[in-house]
């Protein structure tokens, strides 16, 4: 299992810097939105928590698309399924690797992008906390979507369609934490709910994902 984690991370690093690119996308969203919306800084401050969370979510989604697809195309998924590690574990590990190369760096760089979007001072701490708690859920849910669409040609966009509605609760609670934090309000409730979602999906969804992969391969 550790071998799988190491391999996936190594592949992510090697693949033309797949590592930095999730970040880059996040950065670009944070840059493009002010360009589209206009330079009014009070307006930007108001939408910053929401945009940052939506940006993180899209960055996750974009890098997710080939979580299993590459392994499927070159035949290693077949081999992995017949290998002596439980597929549920393999799926969980792959989601973890995905988080380590996208969710985690995203969380760490988010404060910088907060500056670009004029996020109020009080919001930074909560931005990092909410992303740290919420992005693992994004990776695990995304892995489920990727498992459903593995082997379908142009699965990429279908994947987005399937996964984005599943992201809704995470997004709402995550953005709510930051918004409340930025306004100096109590954040305990949405934070607890966010943590509950992450714990719940991490415990249960890998089973659904493994089932989906088995179905897709036969």
């Amino acid at each position, binding site marked *: 299992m550790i071998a799988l984690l190491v391999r996936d991370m*190594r*592949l992510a690093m090697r693949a033309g810097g797949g590592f930095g690119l999730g970040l880059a996308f996040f950065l670009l969203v944070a840059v493009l939105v002010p360009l589209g919306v206009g330079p009014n800084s009070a307006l930007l401050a108001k939408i910053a928590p929401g945009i940052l969370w939506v940006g993180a979510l899209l960055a996750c989604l974009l890098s997710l698309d080939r979580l299993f697809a590459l392994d499927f195309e*070159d035949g290693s998924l077949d081999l*992995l399924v017949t290998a002596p590690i439980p597929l549920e574990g393999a799926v969980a590990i792959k989601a973890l690797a995905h988080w380590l190369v996208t969710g985690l760096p995203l969380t760490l760089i988010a404060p910088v992008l907060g500056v670009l979007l004029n996020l109020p001072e009080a919001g930074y701490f909560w931005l990092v906390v909410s992303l740290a708690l919420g992005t693992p859920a994004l990776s695990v849910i995304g892995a489920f979507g990727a498992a459903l669409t593995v082997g379908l040609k142009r699965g990429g966009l279908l994947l987005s369609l399937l996964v984005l509605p599943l992201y809704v609760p995470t997004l709402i609670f995550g953005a709510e934490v930051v918004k409340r934090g930025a306004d100096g309000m109590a954040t305990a409730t949405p934070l607890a709910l966010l943590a509950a979602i992450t714990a719940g999906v991490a415990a249960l969804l890998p089973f659904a994902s493994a089932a989906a992969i088995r179905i897709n391969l036969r």
Partner: protein
Amino acid sequence: MELRVDQLAVARGGVTVLEGVSFALPAGRGLVLRGPNGIGKTTLLRTVAGLQPAAAGAVSAGAEAIAYAAHADGLKATLTVTENLAFWAAVYGTAAVEYALAQMNLLDLRDRQAANLSAGQKRRLGLARLLVTGRPIWVLDEPTVSLDTASVALFGDVVRGHMSRGGSVLIATHIDLGIEAEVLELGPYRARDGSQSSAFDAAFGGDFA
């Protein structure tokens, strides 16, 4: 460990392509599947390897005794030869990487990225994976595609070595590998038309057309 296949029927795309296939493959023996393109060799091997359910019949050996090698090699283009093998060795919990490299004549290429191998070198690496699985039953789908004659002979030696250590091999191939193995012609097992892959499709006749 014996592989026993009993009245197996296999389906692809909802259509039964082979049916009534039975054979036994004792430890230390080899069996070569032959048959024209499209008869269903790949489908049969995937079923035996546990990747798809059988339409009927049974496969005795558990999937955890079988190492499967498909048309595709499952190589990661950005990893080196050694890294590719080491990953599978770790997954299967063995430590035979050096041995496998030596056996498949890959020592010179060990630090080359898989993307930079020629077609035949890639295939050799794909086959080397079998040696690090440590599993007794090899199920191989056209293993010698793209190999030159020297490499085919090399691979024949590897297969013979595996059999002499009590392993068994089930191979679908169009060419002669030069190993002593029984041959199973798949022609006679071709499913008669009219056979259906699922009870559901069979469950209703034309009376409500």
